[in-house]
C-alpha cells in the first residue's frame, strides 16, 4: 500500500509503524498545556463517539465504569496482594 508521505507528527498512534514509535513520541507535545489539550481531546473523542448520540447504549457509561473499576483495582493492588491464597505462583 503506497500512502502519501504524511508528516510523522500528524499521524495517529495506530498508523505509526513500530520502528517509528520513538521518533513519533518525540514529536508529541509534553508541555502542561499540551498534556491537558491531549486529555481533553481524548475525552471529547470518547464523548462524541459513545455518549453524544441520538440512541446511545449502555456501552458509553459501562466502558467508563469498567475502566474506573480496573484503575481502582490497579491502585489498590499493593493492598490486595495480602489477600493472595498462595505464596508462590
Amino acid at each position, binding site marked *: 500500500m503506497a500512502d502519501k508521505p504524511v508528516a510523522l507528527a500528524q499521524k495517529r498512534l495506530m498508523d505509526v509503524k513500530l520502528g517509528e514509535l520513538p521518533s513519533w513520541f518525540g514529536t508529541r507535545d509534553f508541555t502542561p498545556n499540551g498534556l491537558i489539550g491531549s486529555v481533553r481531546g481524548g475525552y471529547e473523542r470518547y464523548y462524541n463517539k459513545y455518549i*453524544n448520540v441520538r*440512541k*446511545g*447504549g449502555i456501552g*458509553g*457509561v*459501562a*466502558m467508563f465504569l469498567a475502566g474506573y473499576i480496573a484503575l481502582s483495582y490497579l491502585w489498590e493492588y499493593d493492598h490486595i496482594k495480602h489477600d493472595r491464597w*498462595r505464596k508462590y*505462583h
Partner: protein
Amino acid sequence: MLSRLVLVSGHTLKNSGSFGACLVQASRSFHQSSQSLAPVPPLPEKGGKVRHGIFPEELFTLLYPKTGVTGPYMLGTGLLLYMLSKEIYVINHETFAAASIGAVVIYGIKKFGPSVAAFADKINEDKVAKAQEVKDQAMASLTQGIEDEKKEQWRVEGRHMLFDAKRNNVAMLLETNYRERLHMVTNEVKKRLDYQVELQNLHRRMEQEHMVNWVEQSVIKSITPLQEKESIAKCIADLKVLAKATQARATV
C-alpha cells in the same frame, strides 16, 4: 440507554457538580466549540458499537483478520486464566460482592433497559418536537410577514390615485372659498354704492322740497292784501261761472 438518560439530564442540569459534571462540562465545551458552525450538524444516530457492554467493536475487528471470530474470546479467556493463576487478580470477599452486584445490575439492565430507553427517547422527541414547533411557527409568521409586506408594496402603487382625489378635494375647497369671498365682496360693494345712491336721492329730494317750500313762502309773502282781495273776488266769479256751466250741463 443510560447514556441517553445522561444526555437528557446533562442538557438540563448544566450547573450541577455531581456525577454528570464531567459530561456536562464536555457538553458545554462541545457547544462552545461548535458555535462557529451553523447550522449545527445533526447528532449521529447510534454510538460506536460495543460488544457485551464493555468491549468496543474495534478490538474484534482488529483481531478478526488474524484470528477469526473466536480470537478475542480466546484472548479474553487466556488473560483471565493467566490473571487468576498468577493471582494478579485475587479472589477475596470483594470478588463475591462484585459478582452479586454485577448479577443484579445485568439482570436489571436486561429487564428494564428497553423501557428506560423508550422513555428517554420520548423525552428527547418531545423536546425536538417543541423546538420544531417553535421553528415552524417562526417560519409561518415570517412568511406571513413577507406576504403582508408584498401587499403593502402593492398598496403603495395605488397611492397616486389617493393623492389625486385629495388634490381635487383641496382644489374644490379653495375654489368654493374664493367664490364665497367674491360674493361677499360684491355684496358689500353693492351695499355701499346703494347707500351713496340713496344719499344722493335724499339730498335731491330735500333740496327740492326746501326749494318748493321756499318758493311757496316767498310767493305767499309776495301776495299783498290787495292782490288777495282781487284774487278772492275773481275766484268767486269763476266759481259762479262754473256753477252755472255745470248746472246747465246737468239739465242737458
